[in-house]
């Protein structure tokens, strides 16, 4: 009962916050609402016994990516943003298709069939900490994707620097 109540609160909060994110005129406001949204999602992860993921969510997403967004937003002309319309001409069509997508997928959730349960029960995760279990899995079975991910991050670093660099005067 309590769990369901908690979940209902989180669901409404997350839905409302995401609506706020996409409908604000001031982009700084959007970023700030998104920050709040990420905290709620992190709590939802805690709710699902995934502490490490919650931590990662806060550190990487809220602490890294959102700060990056905030920096870029601050480079733009905020005053101009406040005066013009925030939606483009295709907004009604976009809304229609988003709703259509929602309806269609919701209709198909009914026929969802879950796979047979694996070995990582909640008790096991609680016994060995979530971090350790995740770490063991990550570094043995998923080592190759891990290394590839690190390579992707390397590319991102170099790419970001190259793209945003000011041209050197000869």
């Amino acid at each position: 009962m309590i769990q369901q109540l908690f979940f209902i609160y989180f669901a409404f909060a997350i839905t409302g916050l995401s609506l706020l994110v996409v409908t604000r005129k001031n982009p700084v406001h959007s970023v700030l609402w998104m920050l709040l949204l990420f905290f709620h999602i992190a709590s939802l992860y805690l709710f699902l016994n995934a502490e490490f993921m919650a931590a990662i969510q806060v550190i990487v997403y809220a602490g890294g990516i959102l700060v990056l967004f905030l920096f870029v937003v601050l480079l733009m002309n905020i005053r101009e943003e406040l005066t013009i319309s925030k939606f483009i001409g295709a907004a009604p069509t976009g809304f229609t298709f988003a709703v259509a997508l929602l309806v269609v997928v919701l209709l198909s959730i009914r026929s969802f069939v879950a796979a047979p349960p694996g070995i990582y029960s909640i008790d096991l995760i609680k016994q060995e900490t979530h971090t350790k279990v995740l770490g063991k899995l990550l570094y043995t079975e998923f080592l190759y994707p891990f290394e590839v991910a690190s390579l992707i991050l390397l590319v991102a670093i170099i790419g970001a620097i190259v793209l945003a660099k000011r041209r050197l005067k000869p």
Partner: protein
Amino acid sequence: MKLYLLIPFLPLTAFIINILLGKEVLRDKAHWPSILAVVGSFFITITSVLPQITAGKIINEDLYTWIVSGTFNASVGFLIDPLTAVMLIVVTTCASLIHIYAVGYMHGDTGYYRFFAYLSLFTFFMLMLIMANNFLQLYFGWEGVGLCSYFLIGYYFNKKSAADAGKKAFIVNRFGDFGFGIGVFMIFLTFGTLHYVPVFANAATMIGKTVNLLGWNVDLPTLIALLLFCGAVGKSAQIPLHVWLPDAMEGPTPVSALIHAATMVTAGVFLVARCSPIFNLSEFAMNTVAIIGALTMFFAATIAIVQNDIKRIIAYSTCSHLGYMFLACGVGAYAAGIFHLYTHAFFKALLFLAAGSVIHAVHTNDIQEMGGLKKYLPITYAVFVIAGLSAGGFPGLSGFFSKDEIIWSAYAAHTPVGKFVWILALAGAFFTPFYTFRLIFLTFHGKNRGGHDEHGHGSGHGSHHGEHHIHESPWVMTIPLMLLAVGAVAAGWIGIPPILGGGAHFAEFLKPVVGHPEFHGTHAEEFGVMGLSTTLALIGLGLAAFLYLRKTDLPEKIAKQFSPIYKTLYHKYYVDELYNYTIVQPTLWIAKKILVAITDAKIIEGVVNGVPGSIGWFSGKLRKVQTGLAQHYGIFMAAGAVFIIALVLLLR
């Protein structure tokens, strides 16, 4: 090696050498391959083929199979029998002499190599035609000589009249070839094969068979014979397809001599003689042949007496003599027709070449601007007179024997058609010497009328070649003239009829091929007919002498007196105008107004321009999808995802 195979293929090789190497390598030596080839063919004919044929052997061999399609087999094959042998002698002799003559006549011309290349090609096609052993090869040679005639008539392609004449020859020929082609189809349908030997052997099976044509039952032999005769009418310039021959005089004179006197135009007569087994089965067809031949002969002769262009007179004379040959074939005397073909080749080629010699000297074709050339061109004058006497049928010369044979056959055929054509033939016997000697007297006798500016019209530089600067032709031109004159005199001596003491060797030679007509007539009748035609010939000559040597002002008075008749004859009975009005103009109108304006401009252009146009229009519309805005692309993606998931949901 079969030596007779070289006869057609030597000229073909000469053509290939000339057309490939003539312009750059051979240049003014381009005559050597052609002359060597055609003289080589001549020698092979005389030394190898002729002895075999006179000994009675017939060569009939297929070289290789050309087309195999279902039940249809066509091969390249050669048949050499007495008829082919006669034609071979005619073609190779005349071709050799004319090739040599052309060296002098065409000297210095810029298209020298082209001339000899086409001449060799023509010789090749003509030889393939006469040596064919099946109808398809005959048709191949037939079309080929028509093609080369077009090339050679339009040799001076810079002149519009020459180019037009070439087109006219080819197109008018096509009318005839259409009927000929259908005739060949009918032969294949009836006999299942196109080779001569099986067709003629089984020809008798056609008797009585009919073909249902548009509701009427037409007799099969008559139909086939008439269709084949269509081709002969076109190729040999008989009425109504004679209109191309006078215009064909636009080509150089050696071309006129070879193609339009001795060889190509006689291919029609050759065809009728070769298909004599078929023609013999149909009285109607034979009568048609005889009547058309006689009418053409009379018709052309009447036009020739008022023409002023030296070559045109001789062209109408050719037309007229071809009428004689068809007349003979039409009454059943094929051997007589071929005999006249043989002698005619010599004296007509001689007439043309001598005329060419005159033109070469005075640079004009108009006989009203000539005169008194006797003292400047003695050799030409002498051979001209010999040829004229032979053409007119003077006793003792070759033309006399062949013409007489024909007139006698017409009389002795004892059919109503025979009598009718006999009377026309007698009229021809009168006209021929008349117009020939009119030509000779106006050209060579009297005072020189050249160099007068009062005429205004007339050929280009007749005006500044008065009496000076006229010289006899070089030896390379006069020697062929003299050799042909020998032929014009003596070639007919192998066919002297029995009543005059000869052995009629010619007819005997051809008997295995064309048979012997059944003629009944007493010796008295024969002498009477001979005497009558000779008398008419002398009257014709005398009248010509009277009008053009003695009272030279009389012709003009007569022309003014009978002005309508004179005008009609001068304008060739207005046949050209009639054809132009009824056939040419409607065709051009249809071509311009319907085919070009509607089917070409609207329909075909519509499709050809419309397809890219519609593609362009469509792509212009399709291009609008690319807005450049990523959100629009995203919408398409979302829409696609929705569609697929909905589809899966619905179909499950």
